[in-house]
């Protein structure tokens, strides 16, 4: 393989694929990126056996071919090359090496045989639909904070994506929970989503996918089956295994009859919580909301640090209530609320509370209170 490619194009593609590569792996070739030059494009692939990203970039191919080299080393080299530089890649198969030349720099990199590179077989992916980048960002951003990191609850280590109906309207819904909070976000179901199986997309896949749609407004082609999902964005394609497990019946934990309604201006509320939480202990991060007719007091106390109290304006008509929350969980949710007001629907100090965005009916958050 011999080809020339612009540094900027190579760097962008590498930045996408290299983050899939685990820093520590017991299988050497998984540290590598697979480079395939063919026709007018260079394809770069990386995988951790559960997740694969392939990205194509235009290149001037003198001689087609394939090889694999260390993904992080190649990325670091290309990152440090001059802006606007041209990069030449030239494999020397008999020595298992690839030479990279750019300007006055020459690097010789060790290669591993491309035939050994694991390819993810996808099988049939019978369901297809298209999302805009903004829609996908909306689904991911408002749910990913609630994904559980507890590996023993592996079925919670991702976002549950499924098609359902809300008041007879077909919706595509994303749900994540770690047991302490739950985020449920939906959008009008795109064409083709109806009939798809409910799937749990692993956290790493979610985060890599989010990087691919970070900028721009490309369309995302989604294909999925029972065990795999593929998302194509522009010149990049991400294929991932799905979590093999059953997502819990989340509807059961969304309370239906919470009638203590608090409306509070979101930004001042979040700032107050953040300030007051400075006092609460590292472990619990608890803050207490004391809510009476027309007033809300946020407070915290810790035996080591002292106390903090802040009063803010709020609309509230029900009987007084005191309820405690993990401040970090509160802030994770308020961060997702774009509207002016956050609405809390509570039952009592020991039962789940619902939080909504006053301007957005597509997102709903449930938060487990803590004793304070």
């Amino acid at each position, binding site marked *: 393989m011999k080809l020339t490619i612009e540094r900027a194009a190579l760097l962008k593609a590498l930045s996408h694929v290299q983050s899939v590569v685990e820093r520590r792996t017991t299988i050497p070739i998984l540290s590598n990126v697979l480079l395939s030059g063919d026709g007018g494009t260079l394809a770069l692939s990386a995988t951790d056996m559960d997740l694969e990203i392939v990205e194509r970039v235009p290149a001037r191919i003198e001689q087609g071919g394939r090889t694999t080299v260390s993904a992080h080393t190649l990325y670091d080299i290309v990152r440090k090359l001059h802006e606007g530089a041209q990069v030449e890649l030239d494999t020397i198969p008999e020595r298992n090496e690839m030479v990279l030349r750019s300007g006055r720099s020459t690097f010789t990199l060790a290669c591993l045989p491309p035939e050994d590179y694991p390819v993810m077989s996808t099988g049939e992916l019978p369901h297809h639909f298209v999302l805009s980048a903004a829609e996908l960002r909306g689904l991911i951003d408002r749910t990913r904070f609630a994904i*559980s*990191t*507890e*590996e*023993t609850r592996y079925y919670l280590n991702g976002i549950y994506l499924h098609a359902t109906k809300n008041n007879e309207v077909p919706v595509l819904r994303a749900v994540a*929970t*770690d*047991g*302490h*909070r*739950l985020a449920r976000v939906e959008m009008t179901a795109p064409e083709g989503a109806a009939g798809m199986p409910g799937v749990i997309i692993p956290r790493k896949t979610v985060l890599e996918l989010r990087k691919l749609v970070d900028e721009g407004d490309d369309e995302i082609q989604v294909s999925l089956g029972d065990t795999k999902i593929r998302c194509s964005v522009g010149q990049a394609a991400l294929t991932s295994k799905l979590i093999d497990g059953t997502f*819990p019946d989340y509807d059961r*934990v969304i309370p239906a009859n919470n009638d203590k309604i608090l409306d509070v201006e979101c930004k001042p509320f979040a700032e107050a919580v953040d300030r007051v939480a400075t006092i609460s*202990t590292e*472990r*619990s991060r608890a803050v207490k909301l004391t809510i009476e007719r027309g007033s809300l007091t946020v407070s915290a106390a810790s035996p080591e640090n002292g106390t903090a109290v802040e009063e803010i304006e709020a609309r509230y008509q029900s009987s007084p209530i005191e309820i405690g929350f993990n401040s970090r969980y509160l802030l994770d949710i308020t961060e997702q609320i774009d509207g002016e007001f956050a609405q809390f629907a509570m039952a009592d100090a*020991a*039962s*789940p509370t619902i939080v909504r965005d006053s301007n957005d009916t597509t997102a709903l958050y*449930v938060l*487990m209170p*803590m004793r304070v």
Partner: protein
Amino acid sequence: MSVLCRDCGALATATAVPQRCGECASPRLVAHDELAELSIAHIDCDAFYATIEKRDRPELAGLPVIVGGGRRGVVLACCYIARLYGVHSAMPMFKALAACPQAVVIRPDMAKYREVGRAVRAEMQRLTPLVEPLSIDEAFLDLGGTARLHGAAPAQLLAALARRVEHTLGITASIGLSYNKFLAKIASDLDKPRGFAVIGRAEAARFLADKPVGLLWGVGAAMQRRLAADGIAVIGQLRAVDERELALRYGRIGRRLARLARAEDDRAVEPFSATQSISAETTFGRDEADAEALRRELWPLCEKVAERLRQAALAAGTVNLKLKTADFRIRTRSHRLADPTQLADHLFETAARLLAGEADGTTKFRLIGVGADRLVEAEAADLPTLFDHEAGGPRRLAAAIEEIRARHGDAAVRRGRGLRPASS
């Protein structure tokens, strides 16, 4: 200088060290210029488990005695006769028996040792509330300011304590007396067994100068290698290096090393030192490779750790798995929990996941252990979740089990996973 008789407790001043006590003619004298002022002590019982066993079985008096678990365990304690053969604690049993085949091996009776340990501690606490236990049989004591209360210098009180322990409990202890913890601990080791050693301010630095750096608190094998690579083998060499230089080279520990090398240690004797970790382990009667069998061994250990967490009102932030292979390699794997736990079930699920990565069905293991660290207060652990709050959460189940056991004994309620398959 001051001269203390360890038998009658008389404290006298003399210009030269006398042969015998002027009061009772005992030769067991301790002489030191600072003897009357020093007040930080380290007390360490001599070959604790072995000594207790010898006390209870006088016929063993002249024989080498090893306390440990069977042929496959390790030496937990050995008497001073066994030590003459090269036996030492933590040595694998088979090696100990190879070195000293005639040794009498005794199964440990932890309940008995704990009781004696408690009695020793009670004696210490009669002298001062500032007792910092390091283990069942050793502790630091700060006797500063107690001279007037007791009408005797710390050195006299300590000698009397050693005598009392000997008479009432039938075991011996060694005492190290100095002006800080680190030197007191070194001193208690100098004159073992039945010893009394003193390191004063005047000679501390000189005393340390030619000792290996490994003697310093916190310097293990890895740090020793690092220091050796920099040409530092003894404490005197460490002292010759500027404190800032050591801090630059080794970070925070460098600063500590500089202070310790100057014989400075300002740690206070802390009567309530926080528990750092809780663990339980077991050595198998026969090496085990079977993943399912290993998992079964894990469960009772998790229950044990959970029970001790409960007693201490603590919860695990990290779960550790420890394995020792048949060829004595130790593997440790750990997992930081997203939510701290006190419950045996969660400890088990986590430890079992770690085990799944190690138990390949062919590697044989001789020991398995479970530990909890990054401990947090139990308050912050096992909070009810969205999914279980109505049932009261896993805490309620654990509390119910505990209650039943308190009333009807540990065997009254057990998990199915603790059961062994019926042997065919």
